[in-house]
């Protein structure tokens, strides 16, 4: 079949070799005074509704630092997005592609997926690039002696689950009143959803409530059977640990089966606008945790509008600025930038390697004064890390959707460390023995 003439084949061969050459050339980096920030995001797939605002917030803040401050002490920020689709293998691909970019390699990775975090954790010990998992990731990675490169800043899922149990305990009039009650966990069938189970089982043993585990398979659109089972079992409370479209589907199914939304409590990743708006009026009364940053606009938002959006450089829609996940993206970017700034104090005002950035992340002390200076007043909680504690103090509040906005309840919840710390220690030890990791000596390393 004379499909391709000889010249066509020749040009095809040339094109292929040209493409290969280009690929090779892509690895040659310009040596400039730049700090490279990789951005693992998902703007397609079932989790896009939640991934998009977070990525927009993150990228907008990086753009703001460049536009308003000229970079971090003169070192400009460059970034590149990579689409992971919330899939672990694509996340690993993106990681491998981006980890060597920039004059000193990638600054830090925010996988925004517990599954990808699990995979990258193993690589971190050889690659020496920090993995910042603000409010997600491995719960035991608080222990910096074992997980030297993971930073679950702001809290982990054990903290979140603990706080929710405390909240429903408060509602019942005391944790002891939980005895004999039923709490259902509707969770995303992935490492993200499975993470809180250990703590909930521990608390169930302590207080005598029955824990009902109801996994929902990705993408989470089929929940009819789950909610029929909830209707059959009639739990007193439902904890929602969903992501992406699973959240809005859960609330819609709760409406369809008549489960009171006031008794539903979502983790901080199940409490954003894309989760409640699709259910319309039915979502009124739904509660969720909110940590780090609630919805709203503050000083930093005004700056972003002024320096980024008014100049036509905005990443997303202007109306989305100030939503819960957008603000969380801002906060995540902010802690990374501040870590670089802190590390620059130690290592000099130049592009820093992942190892140096890790020092900054381990010596973070963002207090109220600093929060105000950065323009995050009301949208950030103080964080101070150390070698042994990679998360800082976890705290959160409860917010309720009133149909139009999130209403944050007064009163701050703290996780009960007396239960969580031993669990972290055992789990981290187990990981260290399984993977043959030598623990770091936190006393020796300049902490």
């Amino acid at each position, binding site marked *: 079949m004379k499909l391709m003439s000889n010249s066509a084949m020749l040009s095809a061969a040339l094109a292929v070799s040209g493409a290969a050459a280009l690929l090779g050339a892509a690895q040659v980096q310009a040596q400039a005074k730049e700090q490279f920030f990789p951005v693992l995001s998902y703007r397609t797939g079932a989790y*896009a*509704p939640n991934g998009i605002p977070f990525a927009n917030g993150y990228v907008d803040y990086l753009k703001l630092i460049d536009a308003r401050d000229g970079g971090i002490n003169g070192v400009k920020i460059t970034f590149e997005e990579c689409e992971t689709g919330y899939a672990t293998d694509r996340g690993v691909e993106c990681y491998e592609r981006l980890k060597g970019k920039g004059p000193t390699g990638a600054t830090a990775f925010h996988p925004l997926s517990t599954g990808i975090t699990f995979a990258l954790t193993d690589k971190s010990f050889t690659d020496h690039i920090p993995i910042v998992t603000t409010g997600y990731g491995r719960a035991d990675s608080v222990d910096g002696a074992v997980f030297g490169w993971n930073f679950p800043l702001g809290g982990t899922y054990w903290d979140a689950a603990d706080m929710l149990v405390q909240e429903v305990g408060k509602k019942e009039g005391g944790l002891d009143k939980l005895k004999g009650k039923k709490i259902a966990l509707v969770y995303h069938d992935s490492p993200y959803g499975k993470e809180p189970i250990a703590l909930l089982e521990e608390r169930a043993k302590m207080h005598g409530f029955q824990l009902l*585990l109801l996994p929902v398979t990705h993408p989470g659109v*089929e929940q009819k059977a789950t909610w029929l089972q909830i209707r059959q079992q009639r739990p007193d409370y439902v904890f929602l640990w969903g992501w992406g479209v699973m959240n809005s589907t859960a609330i819609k199914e709760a409406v369809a089966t*008549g489960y009171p939304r006031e008794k539903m409590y979502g983790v901080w990743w199940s409490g954003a606008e894309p989760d409640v708006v699709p259910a319309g009026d*039915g979502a009124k009364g739904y509660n969720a945790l909110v940590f780090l940053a609630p919805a709203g606009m503050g000083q930093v938002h005004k700056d972003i509008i002024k320096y980024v959006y008014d100049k036509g450089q905005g990443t997303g829609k202007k109306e989305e600025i100030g939503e819960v996940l957008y603000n969380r993206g801002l906060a995540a970017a902010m802690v990374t930038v501040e870590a670089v700034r802190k590390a620059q104090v130690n290592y000099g005002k130049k592009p820093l390697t992942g190892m140096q950035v890790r020092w900054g992340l381990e010596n973070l002390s963002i207090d109220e004064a600093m929060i105000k200076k950065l323009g995050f007043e009301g949208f950030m909680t103080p964080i101070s890390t150390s070698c042994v504690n990679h998360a800082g103090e976890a705290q959160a509040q409860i917010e309720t959707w009133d149909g139009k906005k999130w209403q944050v309840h007064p009163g701050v919840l703290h996780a009960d460390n007396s239960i969580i710390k031993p669990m972290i220690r055992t789990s981290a030890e187990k990981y260290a023995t399984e993977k043959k990791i030598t623990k770091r000596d936190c006393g020796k390393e300049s902490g």
Partner: protein
Amino acid sequence: MLKKNWPVALLGVALLVGLALPLATGASAPGFYIEVLLGGLMTGVLYSLVAMGFALIFKASGVFNFAQGTMVLFAALAVARMAERMPLWAAILLAMAIMVVLAFLIERIVLRPLVNQEGVALLMATLGVTYFLDGFGQIVWGSDVYEINLGIAKEPVMILQNVFEGGILVNKEDFVAALIATMLVVALAIFFQKTPTGRALRAVADDHQAAQSIGIPLNRIWVIVWSVAGFVALVAGVIWGSKLGVQFSLSQVALKALPVVILGGFTSVTGSIVGGLIIGVGEKMSEVFLGPILVKTFDLAGGGIENWFAYVLALLFLLVRPEGLFGEKLIDRV
């Protein structure tokens, strides 16, 4: 006759026993049992809507349209996005027009060049269409979750409160869905039996060569078939979209319609309905009643039986009765 068909009979009996078990053993309250049954029937109706499209296209052109799920999604996206700017009925009409154009293009670009290839090649071609439409649809319409508001109340209604303790929860939306599906089936039946085009379609389904030899234009018929399938996809899309919200995952859920056509028979629209209902009910029943038992016995990390129930049931049917319940016995037995 029973002797020859004993595997089928056995399967049928097993299914019926499985269905009756929760009620018979008193493992569940009768009111709740009916709720699960209704829930399963409603899910089944949704599957049938997608399966009908499969059956139509296979009936008329022998092509297994893997892209039916994506067509449902595409139609739903079109309606949802356009309804943001114009009244719903206008959006639906416009979406119908788009589906007809799509049908025409698919027939022209994909099917006509492949007309003499075996079924597997056509299956893979429709797989290619799936991927193409997935990407294209999301570029044009976006990947957020979109709403289709049919104006039906979402809150459930309690009925028969005095007969069963606590009453039975029914959903108005589900009823409307079932109603629309029934009307669609009736309309299709009338179309196939009474109109000349419908008769031509059945002739083509029977024997392409013979139909051509009496002057039925094959290419035009295929465009019509794909358009009708597109219309069915549109109805399915509107109903699914109104219930679940229009988003990318719809096309993956629609994959479940494959076992439905296997159960019902590839060439039978009635079979799609019956198969869909069986699978819908079977799924929900097994998930709600069998699931917890399995979890306890085998210490499983949660249920999720409905992920594979439909497929395994289809597999069993393939082994005992490949032509499905209502299909024609033209499968090559190996």
